């Protein structure tokens, strides 16, 4: 059975899956609503399937709030989350600069408070950032965020709704760097982040540092010289009851995680977005070469 057929049937089955059904045998893998989240979720799902488990996919669900709610309801069992996001956005904790400490902290709190287990984290660091075009970077001499802070009032920002309210979003920038009062701030859906920038309707855009578009569109990501943004390492979140029911999830995903590096993530993201490839195919190709 080829991948497309399997995807199709899984998609249809996912449609029918209710929490009650999910607990009977299959493991449900979810994702947030951006390319990288979907690709990594596919990696997890494929790795589990290749290890003989039955997996249902419910991808492209929405923001962090939605995936956490879905976990709480038992509608998904696993999804990829970032240490920085969990720390700042979910737990509302101040940033922890040391990536290992940050990871340990969130793992501990999630286990106690949410009944969610953090499996091993990957080396990739998909940090938040601000990106601009090479032209604009040259014109205003922008290399770091400190360069941008004072002159933001001359520039237009394109961003996503989460960024305007997250403590580590625009408010965090304003507090740590000062300035950052853009001439205009317009929010877009997460998949349209770069459109405004590329079409000249914005000068700066919110970025995730592993976005494929950064490489393909030759964007400049400004250096976070004052270290507002801590590490955002991705790791599989698993509902603890599910992990107890299917302990093999742990070893399978722990074997996969070290292979997900920044370069790997950027490459896969670019393949999906610029080369129009199916996330499942890209993930499968990666697993084939990486094993």
């Amino acid at each position, binding site marked *: 059975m080829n991948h*497309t*057929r399997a*995807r*199709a*049937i899984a*998609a*249809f089955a*996912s*449609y*029918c*899956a*209710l*929490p009650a059904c999910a607990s009977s045998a299959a493991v449900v893998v979810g994702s947030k*609503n*951006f*390319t990288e989240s*979907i690709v990594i979720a596919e990696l997890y799902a494929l790795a589990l399937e290749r290890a003989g488990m039955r997996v249902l996919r*419910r*991808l*492209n*669900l*929405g923001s962090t709030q*939605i995936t956490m*709610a*879905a976990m709480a*309801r038992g*509608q998904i069992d696993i999804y990829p989350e970032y240490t920085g996001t969990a720390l700042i956005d979910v737990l509302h904790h101040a940033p922890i600069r040391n990536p290992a400490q940050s990871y340990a902290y969130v793992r501990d709190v999630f286990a106690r408070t949410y009944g969610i287990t953090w499996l091993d984290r990957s080396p990739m660091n998909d940090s938040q950032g601000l990106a601009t075009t090479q032209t604009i970077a040259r014109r205003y001499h922008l290399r770091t965020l400190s360069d941008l802070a004072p002159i933001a009032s001359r520039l237009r920002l394109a961003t996503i709704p989460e960024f305007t309210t997250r403590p580590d979003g625009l408010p965090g920038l304003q507090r740590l760097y000062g300035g950052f009062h853009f001439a205009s701030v317009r929010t877009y*859906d*997460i*998949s349209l982040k770069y459109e405004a920038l590329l079409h000249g309707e914005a000068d700066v855009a919110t970025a995730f540092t592993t976005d494929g578009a950064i490489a393909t569109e030759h964007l400049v990501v400004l250096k976070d010289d004052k270290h507002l943004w801590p590490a955002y390492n991705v790791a599989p979140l698993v509902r603890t009851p599910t992990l107890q029911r299917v302990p093999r999830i742990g070893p399978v995903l722990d074997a996969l995680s070290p292979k997900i590096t920044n370069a790997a993530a950027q490459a896969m993201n670019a393949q*999906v*977005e610029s080369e*129009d490839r199916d*996330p499942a195919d890209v993930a499968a190709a990666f697993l084939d070469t990486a094993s």
Partner: protein
Amino acid sequence: MNYLIEHPARVALLAGAHLALVAAALACALAIALPVGFALARSERASRAVLALLGALYTVPSLALLALLVQALGLGPAPIFVALVAYAQFVLVRNVLAGVHAVDPGQRDAAIGVGMSPLQRALRVELPQALPIVIGGVRIAGVAMIALATLGGYVGAGGLGSLIFMGFTLHHTDEIVAGSVAVCALAIALDAALRLAERLARAH
């Protein structure tokens, strides 16, 4: 159009799921609208009040209603199913009312005269005669629901909406086009099928 050509089975499966969702919601909506419409037919004032209420419900932005329903019901087909049933009421109840009022008073009179109970009158005389107009309402509501159900892709309900929104997320125009074309095709097919049903009902 490449996606449609390369993945016809997948699109067909999603279209099937989409249609199943809409069909189920239509059936449920009709099961509510029929008794409500029949009950309202007795009172001009109650009809106006309820239709105003349903009209107000109809104008609530679908995304907002969906968000509220997801809070209550979680992700999956449930919130979109409820939203579809709710939105369909305005059209269906209005058409059931119109259908019942279109029944010749002489027919109603004769039904009373031969000794039918109110329920028997409704089932044996008024409903069969109101059927063409009721089916017309089902057609209008159904086509709207085919489109509305694409929002289900936003809340993990599957169907063609999930294809469209996935295309949106991944910047894959092909998938957006494929999903949209399939939705249009479904809507046209449903409209044609129900027009035929309407005509058959009228022939009686």
